[in-house]
């Protein structure tokens, strides 16, 4: 991967508003098109189907936004960060816009591994009805496989509730194996028991992934920071 003849540019961007609805692959595809529209001198891989040399940061689930998301793109020529920003200005959809960039070294960790700690902000459409109680476990069902995660293995900063009880922040970390706890699944578990009608809707539909009916109480769920340990 490391190719000293290439310039490795780390670019931060926002995934917000309607674009919070995008899946990781859709973000990846859109980013690639933004790079092409910005006319950056991106490097191309060799091989049967040449593609852009780009590597994305850790994934966000559908419905979860981010204000400090990142990717690396390898350039064949140096372009000043200021110029890069100018070229991105007209190339991006506003809800998936580039915010800053800097060059990183060829041996720095990949963006998906560089920042294991994620800080999330949850904005509710209504104040919490009761004190929050952090669940001990969350259950993730995917493709009919059920996994039970210990919350304490992932949660590094417990939920902090704002004075008006509508904003909650918390941080999670990825394990060294790469395993993560999905923030939306955690939020569903965290908020269950707050509003009986939403609990009932969640029960009846049996949503096990994503916010599902809990979305009625959620204005936004956003990763507001990613950092090293």
């Amino acid at each position, binding site marked *: 991967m490391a190719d000293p003849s290439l310039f490795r540019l780390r670019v931060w961007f926002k995934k917000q*508003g*309607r*674009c919070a*609805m*995008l*899946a990781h*692959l*859709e973000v990846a*595809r*859109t980013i*690639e*098109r*933004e*790079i*092409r*529209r910005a*006319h950056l001198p991106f490097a*191309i*891989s060799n*091989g*049967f*189907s*040449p*593609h*852009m040399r780009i590597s994305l940061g850790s994934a966000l689930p*559908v*419905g979860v936004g981010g204000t400090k998301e990142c990717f690396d793109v390898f350039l064949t020529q140096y372009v000043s960060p200021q110029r890069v920003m100018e070229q991105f200005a007209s*190339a*991006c*959809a*506003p*809800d998936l816009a580039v915010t800053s960039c800097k060059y990183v070294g060829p041996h720095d960790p990949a963006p998906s591994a560089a920042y294991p700690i994620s800080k999330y902000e949850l904005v509710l459409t209504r104040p919490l009805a009761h004190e929050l109680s952090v669940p001990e476990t969350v259950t993730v069902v995917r493709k009919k496989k059920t996994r039970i995660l210990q919350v304490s293995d992932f949660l590094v900063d417990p939920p902090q509730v704002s004075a008006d009880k509508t904003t909650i922040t918390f941080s999670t970390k990825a394990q060294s194996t790469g395993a993560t706890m999905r923030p939306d699944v955690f939020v569903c578990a965290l908020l269950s028991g707050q509003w009986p009608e939403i609990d009932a809707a969640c029960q009846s*539909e049996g*949503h096990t992934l*994503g*916010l*599902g*009916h809990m*979305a*009625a109480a959620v204005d936004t769920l956003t990763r507001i920071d990613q950092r090293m340990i």
Partner: protein
Amino acid sequence: MRDLWPQVKALLPLVEHPVRYIDHEFGTVHRSADDDPNDTSYCMIYPDTYELGQANQAVRILVNAVNAHPHMFAERAYLPAADFIDLMRAHDLPLFSMESCAPVADFDIVGITLPHELAATNVLETLDLAGIPLHSHDRTEDDPFVVAGGPCTYNPEPYAQFFDAICIGEGEEQTVEIVDAVRAGRAAHKSRKEILEDLADISGMYVPSFYELSDNETAKKTGYAVHPINPHAKQVIEKRIWEGFADSSAWEPCVVPYAELVHDRLNIEILRGCARGCRFCQAGMTYRPVRERSADNIVKSALEGLKKTGYDEVSLTSLSSTDHSQIREILTRLNKALEGTGTRVSIPSQRLDAFGVGMAELVAGKKRGGLTFAIEAGTQRLRDVINKNVTEENIFSAVDQAFHAGWHHCKLYFMVGLPTETDDDLRGIADITQRVYEAAKKAIDPRQKNRLKVGISLAVFVPKSQTPFQWDGQISPEEAQRRINIVRDAITNRGIDVSWHDPRSSFVEAIMSRGGRECGPLIEQAWKNGARFDAWREFFDEDAWRHAGDEVGIDVDSIAQRNFDFDEVLPWQHITSGVHTSFLRLERKRAEQEKVTPDCTFAGCTGCGLCTDRGIDFETQEVRHG
């Protein structure tokens, strides 16, 4: 207009692929605060999901055409997927447009394209979800004008009662004229009927409510199945031709989607029409005359489009792209300009000969996956009947060249149920396929031998209106299965993969293509019985259609399978693509005699009548290479 986004947003976490509904994509054109709220509004609808409709070129062209004019604007809408439709109904959320997320029913004009014969129940689903009365005669002054366009309007009769007006032919100019007529009519406080009369005055417009079905005797006398009952209605509706096509830019600004879609790439329409004259092909008759855009225009447009959209693939689209007289020059220039950018050039279909494969080689780069060859019929006799001007020599030189050049699989397309087809022709499909396999095995690099794959795909022939086979009935579903089985059983080579389109839905296509007004109630009943998304194998509900036939008293099989006599009045006789019925009749006779007719762009005019009537000519950039 009302903004339904808050309601839409609240439901999105509950649906599959919410990305289909969020809009705000790169290239979307939104209304701004400076725009006049009284501008006349046009909503262009593709009656299937976003994945299928987003790339539709007609939708793009017409939206751009309307937006280019003052005092009017256009937005797009698509039919949501079934899960969201059901949820929307449960929450009283009507169909909305993409850009403004406004109720479709609030637009002045709603245009629905009819892209294929299996979209009829989706049209009703679309109207119902929008809260627009299904029948033209139930719509009132406040309802939008509901207009149809697209390939299936060449037999508009099954859809007649659902549309206020139907556009025949190319809509680039006509759509703007429609919006303008509605704008002027509303400004002058004209009644709905008066505005419809203005629409009927536009060339190429058919206003079905201004016609009545004729009794047999009148039909025989006039030669038409319907007659006008309003002075603005013409007896014969001639298709519109956009004469500016060849000289217009091939770069059609488009929205770049977030979602993964079918055909998600830059499309550059390099030519329109195809005059090869395959007798089963409706597009080949209805998109005449052939018009090519120039190599300069195409190369410049492709590069500009790539730059503006960020796509990594450009497709040079048309009915027969490798027939473009400058195709080699276009591909060579594009390859050179795009070198080192990881951008692919593709052509949707290639000619079935060594030249066609040569062109495919030019664009394939190092990646040589699969090639598709539409051979259509298994014997030379039947290929002559259908005027598929392809010889065994063409086929085998194409196969030989392709496998020499590094491809390792190819797929052959055939039809079953073509007029005059016998069991020998079916065994001929098996025979030629096995010989293609052997030829491929010989040509392929011996080290690649275990990657060799040859497949065939069989489709049941659907006779189409406005073609030389418009008089021919379709074979029954049982007969179709029997014929498919003959081919399947005759292919003994285990290396050949045989697949076929489910013949169950073919009768619906045949009915839509050649049915009359009596089929309107059938569509409606089928939809009431739950039919929708008929083109989706997993949704197609045969019983819904068959029961509908019983309920409205129509024998669906007999409509699909009926043969018309040459002197019978056809339900769509009042609609013309410009190709004379006498030419179609002559072509049908030549089919019977196994005589072929050449392509007029190679061999000179063959007398279909269109150009002579209109005082135009086909437009190629250079002499075409046969």
